[in-house]
């Protein structure tokens, strides 16, 4: 029963953090320079549109009332009208979300598959020259600016060798009957390769280092010694006994990595003109399209917050020794 209570209090915490982030967002966009109405109304909107938005967001009312209206609108998923697209912000965001998620997950899956295998291997070869050379190299990939890595890959594989297209999600003029059709096309995958590789090279360090240190911990445990005493082969001990147990915390870190990746996407999407949430946020801020910027920020924050929660819950669920206190 205490588990239920713990999950309940964690959900309460989630609600609190959500409220706080939403409030910070509200204040940030109200304290910006210029007319407070600029957060929702573009001077080029028709008078009728302007009045409708004024009423919808209560822009003529005092700040605290605006705040309550803002919260109410958010609960209904109402984020306002994008200045540039002349369309509801929510619509635009859900249009872009799949692109960002595909980029994020494809790169993270590659990164985790590689990181877990390489991490386990390095733990196994602990103290060898391979390990001595590999760890500093991995740390170096963590020190790279992601967008710079993207630029170098672009210059080599796109501009120099011409193997991959330089940006976007599809060739100009290409038409697809549906999303599934697009996402499975050669064209799309060729566009996906470089940005996904950029993010994967940057992200593999986390699972690799985690896996390695977990393996080293697990290898010291009694049940591994026991397996060795039983005379099991080195392979069986490392893979069947140690790696399986070392894997759990690495898998929970996946959730956190999704949150972090979404932030890193902001720059990489810009380098590759990948039409995702991050690039949209940058463009919206640069073009003073405040409702869209607010919406994109909120969406990214939502994913980060939920992924943090998921990581916490997964961790406790997969390893019952962790208490919820």
């Amino acid at each position, binding site marked *: 029963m205490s588990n239920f209570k713990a999950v309940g209090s964690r959900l309460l915490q989630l609600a*609190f953090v959500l409220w706080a982030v939403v409030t910070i967002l509200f204040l940030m966009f109200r304290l910006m320079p210029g007319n407070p109405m600029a957060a929702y109304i573009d001077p080029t909107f028709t008078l009728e549109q302007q009045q409708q938005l004024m009423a919808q967001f209560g822009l003529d009312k005092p700040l605290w009332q605006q705040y309550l209206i803002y919260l109410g609108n958010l609960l209904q998923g109402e984020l306002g009208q994008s200045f540039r697209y002349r369309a509801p912000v929510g619509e635009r965001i859900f249009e872009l979300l799949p692109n960002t998620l595909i980029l994020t997950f494809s790169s993270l899956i590659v990164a985790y598959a590689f990181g877990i295998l390489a991490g386990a291997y390095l733990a196994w070869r602990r103290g060898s020259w391979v390990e001595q050379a590999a760890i*500093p190299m991995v740390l170096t990939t963590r*020190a790279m600016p992601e967008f710079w890595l993207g*630029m*170098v890959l672009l*210059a080599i594989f796109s501009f120099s060798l011409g193997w991959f297209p330089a940006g976007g999600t599809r060739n100009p003029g290409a038409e697809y009957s549906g999303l599934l059709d697009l996402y499975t096309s050669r064209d799309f995958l060729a566009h996906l390769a470089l940005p996904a590789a950029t993010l994967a090279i940057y992200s593999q360090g986390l699972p690799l280092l985690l896996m390695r*240190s977990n393996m080293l911990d697990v290898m010291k445990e009694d049940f591994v010694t026991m397996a060795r005493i039983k005379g099991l082969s080195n392979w069986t001990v490392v893979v069947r006994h140690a790696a399986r147990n070392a894997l759990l915390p690495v898998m929970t870190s996946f959730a956190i990595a999704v949150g972090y990746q979404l932030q890193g996407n902001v720059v990489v999407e810009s380098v590759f003109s990948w039409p995702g949430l991050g690039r949209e946020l940058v463009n919206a801020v640069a073009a003073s399209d405040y409702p869209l910027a607010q919406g994109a920020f909120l969406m990214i*924050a939502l994913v*980060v917050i939920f992924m943090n929660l998921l990581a916490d819950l997964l961790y406790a669920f997969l390893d019952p020794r962790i208490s919820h206190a």
Partner: protein
Amino acid sequence: MPEVAAVKTSVSEAVVPEVAAPRRPNIIARFFRTLRLPVNDPFAVAGLVIYLIFIATAIFADSIATHDPTEILYTPSYDLAADLRPGQDGFLMGTTSLGRDVFSQLIHGSRSALLIGVTAAFMVALIGSIIGLVAGYFGRWVDAVLMRLADIAFGIPFLPFVIVLAAFLKPSIWNVVLAMALVLWRDTARVIRSQVLTLRTRGYVEAARVAGSSDFRIILRHIAPNILPLSFLYGSIAIGWAILTEASISFLGFGDPDSISWGYMLQDAFASQALAKQAYYWFVPPGVCIILVVSAGFFITRGYENILFPKLNR
């Protein structure tokens, strides 16, 4: 190196004034002992050497640079010195599309990187340490309030936050420092808090309390010196974060247009089609400099961890 000395003294003054009290003649030796610099780890030493070169470059940038980094230059035949390859007309690393010297920009870029890195790291370490100390020591509602603040900070996507902040404030290199001070203290604070929780039950802290020491004195005298290496550890991670963040922000076009930084160089190169022109001499060096400085921080950090947490030392 005067800059480092200045920062270190201010750290010691802010967190442990007693250590810096004038009546102790060997304060510098004591201070370095308290920091426990990792001099036995070859990678950490390499990291320290990179840092020294980096700091020296930033200090003597004016004498090292061959040109004014923002000046538009001309070749001896009075043509605009645009897109020259390395070595052409005496430009060591070539020129940008607007005829500026890449080498001089690279050298001057070390200044803003050092400035941002050190101040942001100092702010993050200082704020994180103070919040962690106060939360861990006083516990109860103080702890609850501060840790809920940390929860909120963990819920804010950092890079998007910096972008919005940088767009709304005047373009300045300090936006990155401000954003880091507002958000990134969270990791430091959590770690320091948990460290303080174990420290405050130690015998000597109990003894000091019984002997009538004030809370303030116990924190400064008995607890803070023990967490100083941890603050330093998180500070050195923050240097790398600050430089990477500044580079990202400048690259996205929200940086200070008046200051030459490595991120600005990359943005300039990207916007000027340097990739299509195969101008590797232009966009590779700033990235390499960033990697060198940031990974130097990582190596020093790792050396530190081995000293601070010998259990991890393998």
